[in-house]
């Protein structure tokens, strides 16, 4: 089975979004980068090292947050993260200190002495992020970090990832099947589909001025969609979000009016620079895939 099919891409430091539908090969790419599965052909370099022979050195400097649930429910979060720090080679005291720090950075300082089994999905995601961060990696590989989170939780997680990528000085690769999410925080994007590279570029280079308003409500998305269509706006749906082209200042008022009339809890209304999704879909399939970022 070929999960990834011959492509070349250079990725620069910063926050990188790796987008693709489920089964596009995102997780396989991550495993290859970690040296957990060897490519049948071609070369991979991570932090200047080859995951084949130097997998151990890479894994010491990379933090990995898997997509699925991967935490022992009957362990206390602080102890688990400490244990994982030691597994990354931190001496006992350092592991304990850094575990507290990592849990503080992800916003779980108060709750760190509770058993993981009693945590909400959002808190579990944060513990997973903390264990990836505990040994101060140079590169974080995050596989669907917003999985299973509610809108507020997703925003908080993305803000956290953004902070890690900018303030902490750690490069981050975020995998997601939701383009709309990662494009908000990434410097560059790599899109793959069916194991092939669709496009890789800096987000700024992909920017096309096509103003779109993204509307998100906590509930009643269908109602709102119907309401907006009635109000004469061409609405498209993307996940939990409704996208409306911003034609004039009137558009804002129409949307707010519709939301108010339906008495829906508005979660977000913001202007998007563009819709990268469209860029990807209209992009001709790369010939000899030789795309370079930057």
């Amino acid at each position, binding site marked *: 089975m070929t999960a990834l099919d011959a492509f070349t891409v250079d990725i620069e430091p910063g926050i990188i979004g790796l987008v693709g539908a489920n089964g596009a090969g995102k997780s396989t790419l991550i495993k290859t980068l970690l040296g957990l599965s060897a490519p049948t052909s071609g070369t991979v370099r991570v932090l200047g090292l080859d995951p084949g022979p130097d997998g151990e050195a890479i894994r010491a400097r990379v933090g*990995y947050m898997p997509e699925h649930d991967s935490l022992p429910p009957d362990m206390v979060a602080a102890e688990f993260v400490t244990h994982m720090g030691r597994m990354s080679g931190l001496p006992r005291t350092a592991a304990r200190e850094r575990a507290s720090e990592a849990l503080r950075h992800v916003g779980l300082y108060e709750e760190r002495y509770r058993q993981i089994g009693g945590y909400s999905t959002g808190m579990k995601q944060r513990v997973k992020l903390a264990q990836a961060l505990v040994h101060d990696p140079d590169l974080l590989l995050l596989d669907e970090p917003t999985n299973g989170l509610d809108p507020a939780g997703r925003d908080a997680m993305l803000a956290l990832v953004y902070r890690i990528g900018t303030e902490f000085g750690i490069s981050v690769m975020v995998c997601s099947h939701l383009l709309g999410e990662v494009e908000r925080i990434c410097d560059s994007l790599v899109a793959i589909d069916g194991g092939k590279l669709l496009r890789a570029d800096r987000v700024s280079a992909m920017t096309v001025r096509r103003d779109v308003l993204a509307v998100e409500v906590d509930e009643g998305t269908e109602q709102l969609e119907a309401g907006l269509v009635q109000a004469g706006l061409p609405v498209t749906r993307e996940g939990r979000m409704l996208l409306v082209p911003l034609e004039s200042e009137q558009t804002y008022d129409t949307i707010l009016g519709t939301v108010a009339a339906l008495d829906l809890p508005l979660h977000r209304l913001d202007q998007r620079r563009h819709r990268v999704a469209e860029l990807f879909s209209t992009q001709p399939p790369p010939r000899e895939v030789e795309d370079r970022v930057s």
Partner: protein
Amino acid sequence: MSADIVPSQAAPVEPSGGVIHDIGYQRYEGPRLGRGYAARSLYVHSLRTAFGLGRSAKSKIFPWLVVALVTMVAVVAVAVRGESGNAVLGYLQFTDAVSMPTLLFLAVVAPELVSRDLRAQVLPLYFSRPLRRGDYALAKLAAMTTAVWLLLAGPQVLMFIGGVFSRNDGFAGIVDEFHDFWVGLSYAAIAAVVFSTLGILLASLSGRRAVAAAVIAGVYLVTAPVAVVLASLGGTVGRVAPILNPVTLVQGVETWLYGRDTGVDVGQHGYLYLVVAVVLVAAYVTLLLARYRKVAA
């Protein structure tokens, strides 16, 4: 396929700014110990887990119940010896006498060590670190073996102390006692290795602790009557049959190696018991490593 990911070096902390608002994120500059350290840490962590240390009170109950039980056996043995003067339960015999509680301990603790990680899918977090798959499996196996050995050796220390005090033949007696004690510990180690390799291998096959425990107990309990029935046939078959059950297998090794009559009639085939034990342990370890090469990360 080629992907190149070269992130930046650690972001330098602004040297000039002068205004510090928040300590913020601090990079780690300390030592990073490698794979060996990680494996040792996992071993210690797992050994503690075996006895429920560093875990909830609930998970301490069973291991310490078994510890209390086997210690009680040793205490009774010491008391009887103190009263009557002769040892009714020797060091070698002790390991055989507590084989049932030892198996229960194994059936509960082995799944605790390996099935739990399979169930919670924690393995990808281990394997994305310097630790290798084989290191993980061997660290768990070593922890299980040590735990079983401690369970068997601890009470023997009590028996040794009691034995020294109940003897009145001076220094020569103590040397003699120490020799017996040492033999007892070495036999406990053989039993611990044979029991634990099979226990961990069986537990690694299932993520459900209850299933794993049942499989371990089942393998030990089902093979026991089979071995007994075949042994009752006598002849060569009868002398080789105890090999089928891990408990009688190690008793056969004991009979041949230490010359204690365990009720297992090894006849001329004594060496066979040791050979089979060594081959089985090697096979179990190989299978265990193969299992962890396959397990999803």
